[in-house]
């Protein structure tokens, strides 16, 4: 019978991109971070949603990276489409000029950041974002309403100490207990996991991507995997007509 030659993968794309980050650091290539999401590889697993939620210890009601599911076609010709929707990190971000306290801006790596210490929670930015990428932290906690029976059940207090009242080191800063102000009451959104990226790690939505659909890297590095992908004829961006110039690209 027909015998095809076997060619095994040499490297997982996650490792390739990890090396790309290392090269940016080693060769001091000024970074402009971009994300590329290959929709033909997205399987709607929501691993990115949860990786992000746990990396950033997100409370109830706050999601940085939902994946929108859609069914297309009529029976029996049916397909399913999935669209991960992080912050688009627009180069012309509509959320920035509306901030009355200048708590959000595009930084010099092309990433739109929020300074929780400045944010007053007015939610203008939530309304301004055409992608719905910003959510408000109303201070809820997953342990709310759970029982307490010390010595017999693990109980609410241990859960709060375990994770529910903790904050994650977003922007590589210690935000302390959730009962103490920020980021409670603030606008929150995807920050490209800058705390990871600045430490040589890919964002959590990238390293969690089961379908290997999400790519990340420095567009200024011509050797980077993302550099090649952004140049694909399949590239598109969401709501390009608005002129927001997102740094999240989709391969359709």
């Amino acid at each position, binding site marked *: 019978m027909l015998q095809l030659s076997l060619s095994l993968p040499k490297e997982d794309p996650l490792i390739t991109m990890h090396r790309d980050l290392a090269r940016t650091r080693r060769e001091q290539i000024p970074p402009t971070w971009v994300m590329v999401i290959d929709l033909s590889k997205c399987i709607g697993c929501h691993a990115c949603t949860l990786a992000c939620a746990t990396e950033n210890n997100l409370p109830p009601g706050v999601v940085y990276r939902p994946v929108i599911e859609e069914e297309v076609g009529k029976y029996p010709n049916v397909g399913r489409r999935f669209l991960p929707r992080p912050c688009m990190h627009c180069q012309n971000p509509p959320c920035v000029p509306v901030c009355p306290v200048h708590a959000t801006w595009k930084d010099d790596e092309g990433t739109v950041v929020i300074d929780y210490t400045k944010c007053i929670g007015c939610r203008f930015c939530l309304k301004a974002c055409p992608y719905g990428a910003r959510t408000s932290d109303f201070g809820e906690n997953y342990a709310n309403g759970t029982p307490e029976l010390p010595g017999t059940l693990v109980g609410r207090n241990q859960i709060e100490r375990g994770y529910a009242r903790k904050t994650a080191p977003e922007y590589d800063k210690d935000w302390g207990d959730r009962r103490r102000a920020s980021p409670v009451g603030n606008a929150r959104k995807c920050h490209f996991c800058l705390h990871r990226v600045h430490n040589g790690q890919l964002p959590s939505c990238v390293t*969690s991507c089961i379908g290997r659909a999400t790519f990340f890297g420095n567009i200024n590095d011509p050797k980077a995997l993302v550099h090649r992908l952004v140049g694909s004829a399949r590239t598109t961006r969401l709501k390009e007509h608005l002129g927001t110039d997102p740094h999240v690209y989709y391969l359709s």
Partner: protein
Amino acid sequence: MSKPHTPNHTQPECPHRRTFLKTCALLGGTAAAISTVGSWMDQEASATSIPGEGAYTLLRPEHQIRSVCQQCNTQCGTTVKFKDGRVAKIDGNPYNPWNLCPQIAYNTPITEAASIDAPLCPKGFAGIQTLYDPYRIVKVLKRAGKRGENKWISIPFEQAIQEIIAGGDLFGEGHVEGISELAALRDPKIHKMLAEDAKKVADKKMSLEEFQSKYAEYLKYLIDPNHPDLGPKNNQICYYWGRQKGGRGELIKRFFADGLGTINTHGHTTVCQGSLYFTCKAMSDQFVEGKFTDGSKFYWQADTGNAEFILFVGASPYEANYGPPMRAGKVTQSIVDGGRKIAVVDPRCSKTAGRAWKWIPIVPEAIGALGQAMIRWIIEQERYDARYLANANKAAAKAANEPTWTQACWLVVINDDGTPGRFLRGSDLGHPKETRPSKKHPEQTWEFDAFVTLRGNTPQFFDPNSESEAVTGELFVDTELGGTHVKSVLQIYKETAFSRSLGEWAQVCGIPEAEIVELAQEFTSYGKRAVADIHRGASQHTIGFYNVLTWMTVNVLIGNHDWAGGLTKATTYNATGDKEGMPFPVTKSPNKISPWGISIIRHGVPYDKTTLFEGYPAKRVWYPFASDIYQEVIPSAGDMYPYQIKCLFLYMGTPVYALPGGHKLVEILKNPKKIPLFIASDITVGETSMYADYIFPDLTYLERWEFAGSHPSMSCKVAPIRQPAAAPMTETVTAYGEKMPICLESTLLALAEALNLPNFGPNAWGEGTSFTRMEDLYLRMVANIAFGEKADGSDKVPPASPEEERIFLQARAHLPETIFHPERWKAIVGPELWPHVVTVLNRGGRFQEYAKAYNGNQLANKYGKMVGIYMENLARTKNSMTGKPYVPHAHWTPNPIDCMGNRIEDEKNGFSFTLITYKTITQTKSRTIVDYWLDAVLPEGFLEMAAEDAARMGLRTGDRVAIISPTNPDGMWDLGHGQTKPIHGKVKVIQGLRPGVVAFPLGFGHWANGAGDMVIDGVSIPGDPRRARGFHANAAMRLDPVLENTGLVDTVGGSAVFYQSRVKIVKLA
């Protein structure tokens, strides 16, 4: 409010505005210790970003322990990360081939690997909430009310152990026999004598009277002296588990089988994909000294990354199927980058189907019929691998460079009624038998009677295992030889598949004929690099065994076993040390009892070969070809057939929630007269443990050990290891004078101590080798893995460097001595093996390099044996219900059928929908509802309905409906004591579902596991409504009309049936 910051919107030109980490990056950075991590931002940094403070520390190896997930049974590798001694994040382990393909090199220093994360599924990430679950119990609970009333008192561990051992009037309801009374006979020699002679009685080689007079003094130890083959009273202790892997498996066998001598240790296989396992077990039977035997309970899956075409049959690797992290990425990259194809056979357009080249929306009961149609087309078009199929034995396979061979050309004797029977043997044609020495029993011999093929018109006599005499045969034979009507196996398959025209098969399947042709054409267009990958969607049917055999035969037709891109099997490093020269043979068990008798699920023995035989049908089904029949344990105990279970010990299982018709178990469990003592080991008070008398808290998968094994699609040889990562949260107790957290291990150690079992305690493996702590067993298993399988030690992993040893200790600084004690750990394996053990633990196991899993176009880790497709054992055995022999080959008959083989036709009574289940990636049946983060994706399950049906019924998405069935006309879970939960759900109208089918995801609609109210020590603990959302429709599934207290079953492969219940959908106001 501080002064507003002035953002800079332009790119500054300064090229050195960033000082990247001063640490090395993996694979190509400068080498520097990771502990010198600094921030990307330094003092000179631009003011345009938020300055970091170095608060992110999870990428340091000192903050990480590599382990194995258990949020589902895929068992992906994890990196558990800590902040201040608490689990702060879980990621995938880059050393583990579940998570990356290829995974990083095993010799990568952990300092380099520490910054590399790998994928997990959403459940894996959310596991932090399984650990930190407020409803977790930390102390032993004893029921304070009636069974299932959910009233409890917490009691001291020692009291619970003592009560269980001694029995007594434990609940004010009368005397309860304790374990010491039930397992009174513990002398292995007496067990052996009784077992041997009881078998003689069953075989009618010894009279009952003779047995009874010979063993008069021991009859009191038997369940029933008139039926000695039922075995000893020890068998009235039943250990019953949901999810159990290696390590705990060895512990359990040591305690319940070797120690207590019960034959009743049963797993949950048949609720998952039982018939897949047991068909493949039958297929892997080899011809050994005159018998077809020694098959493994296992199955094959696709070598996912290397197939040109995969046909997923009742399988969805994007959501389940041991798939997401391990397989899905291989599939997406194959499709998008490699231009390969997949197709999915499923009544529902799963996420996999929704991204596939083809979705085949099969009629549920016709999933095997589609395979028969493919067999027909492939034979008709001669697109099978004739060269492979013509090989009759090992030598022929070897000559053809085939790792395996099958029975396609073997000749079978046709019975007078035209049905195929046993294989034709040399002696039938006057060919002499040979007397051969036995390898199994050195002093004995056995008679070899050759098998026969036909070459031209000449019979060829052969030994299937011969390595020197290659024999091939004609594929299609229907003739007379020496007056006997014979056919080749492939001829029988051909006639079966040709019993319907392709058009007729297409009609049965509800699929256009052209689609079937296209599918078969595609399947036969890539040589051996195409594969049908089968999972529970094919096996959990009343004819599941034959569905699986049909689809596996489709694979056999192209001979893809052991070929890259074909069928693979799991291969693991030996952890039990039972190979020559390995350091710790942990299964060695002094004075162990060999359990004997008939099990409560009546498996592994034909009904008519026992003293219970009293004509057909039997009272309940006997399962000579299956084991671990989950749905059979409690109903059999309820019927007390073949005897009463007096002590049930349930571990990490919830059959009430998980089984079709699980509500019927409640009636049995809530009645102490049926099962007088019911002990559960559980994390919370669950849907089944709520009926227990005692619940012993267990540790979660993040706090404990286990050896996760592998899955069939994993081509590398592996040994992933789960190890204590988080500090234990249960109460600290004492066994053998050692302090440890309450968990399964401490419970069994304390019971063993109280019973003075010889294979536990200070001399468990022989003089001076103690088993008084869990790591006494588990670290020895790790050491076996580290040592490898070569007696000279040349297969050992490299030793850990001093730095890796330092990091190993530092990473465990948060673990108390009750779970981690470095000196004691080192002493268990010895100073020589210790650095090798550290290497393995630092990497979460041992993993073969991906490239080494292939050898040219073939797999390196081969099955390498005969692939049976004709089961003579079936033809020689009678079905306990019908009294007829089992059909020995793949075929398809109209179904569903009841356990008597009669067609169930509920559709004629207006039950117009077939109810099926599916897995959403965010839930694992019973246990992940506690992970609140997952609510963000799917807070509750819907009843999915095809748009066409919904339009006809006037239903819209969001409408509430009741699901009722012929055996649950009220559509209700009756939980006992007046508690009920209706099967009411919200409809979701979709296109991606075959009309006439409704589907729901497993995992929602809980009433325990934190979802229901309970009282502990007089304190009311309200349930959490987040866990009760949605509905669970297992109670609407069809009960078998003969058995009545059990759902539909596959009487051959043992599967519980999930896809064949007919229901009515009623709109609620």
